[in-house]
C-alpha cells in the first residue's frame, strides 16, 4: 500500500513536470527561450516516471531492470546535444553576428568565423611504389 502511494507520487510528479515542459513550448516567445523548456522541465518529468517504474518493478514485481538507468543515461547524453544543434541552426539561419555578444577573444563565434589556421605537421613523403 505504502509502496503504491510512493510510486503514484513519483508518477504524478513526473507527469506534472512533463506537462509544464510542454506548456512552456507553447507559452515562451522565441526559439531560444523555448529551448529551455524541453531541456529541463522534461528531464525531471521523464525522471519521475522512470523512478516510479523502477520502484514498481523492484518492490511489487520483485524484478530489477537496468533499462530505466539506460534510458536516463541516453537522455542525459542526447538532450544537450539536440538542444545544441537546434541552437546552432537557429543562430545560423535567423540571427546575424551583430545580434550576439563579442566572443572576447581574437576569433568570433564558430558559426560565423573560420577557425585559426593550424600549423600542419610536415607530411611524410608519399610512399613510392616499389619497383617489381
Amino acid at each position, binding site marked *: 500500500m505504502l509502496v503504491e502511494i510512493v510510486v503514484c507520487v513519483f508518477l504524478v510528479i513526473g507527469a506534472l513536470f512533463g506537462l509544464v515542459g510542454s506548456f512552456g513550448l507553447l507559452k515562451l516567445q522565441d526559439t531560444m527561450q523555448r529551448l529551455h523548456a524541453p531541456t529541463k522541465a522534461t528531464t*525531471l518529468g521523464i525522471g519521475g516516471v522512470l523512478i516510479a517504474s523502477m520502484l514498481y518493478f523492484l518492490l511489487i514485481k520483485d524484478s530489477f531492470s537496468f533499462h530505466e538507468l539506460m534510458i536516463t543515461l541516453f537522455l542525459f547524453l542526447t538532450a544537450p546535444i539536440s*538542444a545544441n544543434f537546434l541552437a546552432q541552426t537557429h543562430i545560423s539561419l535567423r540571427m546575424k553576428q551583430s545580434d550576439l555578444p563579442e566572443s572576447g577573444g581574437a576569433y568570433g563565434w564558430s558559426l560565423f568565423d573560420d577557425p585559426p589556421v593550424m600549423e600542419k605537421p610536415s607530411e611524410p613523403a608519399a610512399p613510392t611504389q616499389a619497383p617489381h
Partner: protein
Amino acid sequence: MLRKLVPHPFLAVSLACVWLALVNKITLGNIILGGFLGLVIALITAPYWPGKPRVRDPFKVVGFVFLVMWDIVVANVQIALIILFKPTDKLKSAWITVPLELTSPEAITVLAGTITMTPGTVSATLSSCGRAILVHALHTDDPIAVRDDIKSRYEKRLLEIFS
C-alpha cells in the same frame, strides 16, 4: 600491439556494461558478446577519439555527477516556476559569453552539456578558436553573476578532474 588493438580500454568496458544492461540478463554468452562488441566498436570508432582524456581523480567525478544531478532537479523546479508564473514580457533573456580555461575537447563537451542541463542556461556555440562558449540564459537579472557561477561551480571542478 595491445595499445593498437584496444585503443580505449575504458570505452570498451563501458560499452560492454551498456550492452549487458540493455539485454538485462547477465549470462556468460552475453558477457562474451558484450566484450566483443566493446572491443570492436572501440576499435572502429578510434579515429574519432584521437586524444585520450586523462581523468586525474575518479572520486571528483562522482562528486561532480552528484552535484550536477542535484542542480538538474533545482533547474527543473526553477524553470517550471518561471514557465508557470512569470509573464513572458517580464522575462529577461540574455546572451552570455563565458571565456574558457578548459582546453581538452572532452572537458569542453562535458561543460557544454552541464550548462544545458542546469539552471536557466543553454550552451549555444563555441568561438572558432575554442576559447569561449556562448550561453543563452532564459531569465537573469545579472549576466555577469551567471558567468561567474558557471566558471566557479562547474569549470573549476572540471579543471581539477581533467588534467
